[in-house]
């Protein structure tokens, strides 16, 4: 499935946002703000940008996707289900005993997950290892790593940043969820990250800042990354945490909390209204 228009991508993101809300209610724990904020990025990555074969998750020519901030996995599971990796109904098993949809992604439980994740500051290094392997083998596939602003407080992230520049990993593109929140509050209060794009440029990367809800801008940035030779690319995607549901938006308290049934009902109604508008404009 390759979606091209902003409207198609927006409808997919809208469906995934509703999935996230529906999954989190029975799970009764998990993260709300991050998955909703990254829905548009995941829509572009899974339904426009990346090459994969859901029927053959280990297909050698696939692009590799590493979700470094594993706690936003509800959006990954939704994207994978809608891409055909597993049935949509299975989304409702999130975080339940025996489920393949672990609280943080597990590569052994669910085919298509390239790397278990959750402990912050590791995914970019893993993605670097994959990209190095691709370079050694002169492979065509690319590596995509979704990361978060908060995990740039882990020093190990910067170790990977240096390595990617040194080895000129232009087959690697990272997308940072720049939503300015973390568990204890705003990122700039907890530990300021300030101008992340400038930091990446200083470390030898190609860095692009985009509105993380602007499909055209995201697609352009990914095209630019593919054309870039000799440097890895970081796309700083400025997002609104909790995007799509007014009561969750820009409130750090929704980082690690699941909505209650009555809150979910309101959220789904709001997403339904948005969907009608999108369909009317199609």
């Amino acid at each position, binding site marked *: 499935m390759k979606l091209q228009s902003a409207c198609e991508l927006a409808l997919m993101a809208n469906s995934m946002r509703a999935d996230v809300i529906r999954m989190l209610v029975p799970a009764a724990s998990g993260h709300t703000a991050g998955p909703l904020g990254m829905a548009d990025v995941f829509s572009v990555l899974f339904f426009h940008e990346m090459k994969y074969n859901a029927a053959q998750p280990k297909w050698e020519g696939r692009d*590799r996707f*590493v979700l470094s901030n594993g706690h936003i996995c509800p959006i990954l599971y939704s994207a994978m289900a809608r891409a055909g990796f597993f049935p949509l109904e299975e989304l409702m098993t999130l975080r339940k005993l025996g489920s393949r949809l672990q609280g943080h992604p*597990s*590569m*052994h439980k669910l085919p298509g997950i*390239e*790397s*278990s994740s*959750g*402990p912050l*500051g*590791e995914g970019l*290094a*893993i*993605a*670097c*290892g*994959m*990209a*190095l*392997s*691709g370079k*050694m083998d002169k492979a065509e596939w690319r590596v995509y790593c979704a990361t978060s602003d908060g995990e740039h407080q882990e*020093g*190990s992230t910067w*170790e*990977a940043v*240096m*390595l990617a520049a040194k*080895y000129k990993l232009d087959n690697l593109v990272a997308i940072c969820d720049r939503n300015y929140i973390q568990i204890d509050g705003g990122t700039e209060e907890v530990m300021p990250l300030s101008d992340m794009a400038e930091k990446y440029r200083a470390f030898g990367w190609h860095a692009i800042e985009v509105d993380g809800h602007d499909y055209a801008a995201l697609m352009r940035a990914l095209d630019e990354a593919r054309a870039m030779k000799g440097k890895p690319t970081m796309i700083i995607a400025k997002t609104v945490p909790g995007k799509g549901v007014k009561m969750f938006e820009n409130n750090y308290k929704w980082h690690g909390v699941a909505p209650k049934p009555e809150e979910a009902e309101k959220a789904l109604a709001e997403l339904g209204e948005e969907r009608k508008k999108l369909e009317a404009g199609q």
Partner: protein
Amino acid sequence: MKTNPEMHLLDPVLPSLSKAATRNGFGTALVEIGEKDASVVALSADVSCSVQIEKFAKKFPGRFVQVGVAEQNMAAVAAGLAYAGKKPYIGAFAVFSPGRNWEQIRTTICYANADVKIEGSHVGLDVGEDGATHQALEDVSLMRSLPNMTVISPCDYEETKKAVHAAWKIPGPAYIRCTRNATATFTTPETPFAIGRMNLLCEGRDIAIVAAGRLVYDALLAADALSSQGLSVAVANLHTISSPDSAALEKLARECGTVITVEDHQVKGGLGSAVCETLADVYPVRVRRMGMEMKFGESGRGNEVMGKYGLSKDGIIKVVKEEVARKK
């Protein structure tokens, strides 16, 4: 004292025994494996010369990744290489790998059961002059607590080469403990080596010593000295600490009654603990653990520092005599 003929050992008291550091055995074997297997790659954290991965790096520059002083990154990058089909070998000083990057090893290597082999070099008081900050005395404990991890502490250069080849043949992670200083090579190419199998180097009736790493040699020297004093001391090399050979340990415990463990490591969490756990299950006997008594080390020549803390031929003789007296 007669050593077990099945072990094909050189006479440990021969002054003509050649000396080599076990880290050199690691480096030599890594090149041999690299020649056989194109998927083998190596990474180091600015110590490729010290941990002897340099030989591989020179021979296969396109398959070597220099990560700089960044052990956490080394572990996770190796994991990514493994997920993409490579067989990475990582090496650094054990205080930093697995000391500093334990969580990366846990999550990205062990949880994934990734085919990453880890060389922890410069272990124990053997490091000597560099002092306490650089003497890894807790690495076995750190690695032994991880599911999927095979932990091997080879006794000499020759056995280290065998351990590296044997680890290459098993999928999944392994940790191989190496020393800085040259020690006597007393095993031979004919000496058997199988992961998980204890080697009984010499038989005995009065007491059993179970050792690992470079102190196996000192245990043999102690047993030899004690035999001339009429004591019959068994010496076993328990190189695979993650899965102690319980049948062989039980037999030894039944025959000798008391077991003394000897290691260049803290007495809690390492070989001694592994032997206690195993014997508690199969045949509980008295176990006297020799090692570092939950202290930090200090500077000095390796042998001097080890001697000060009782980890020497003389230290072992003293403890054997105490334990024999206690049995009576």
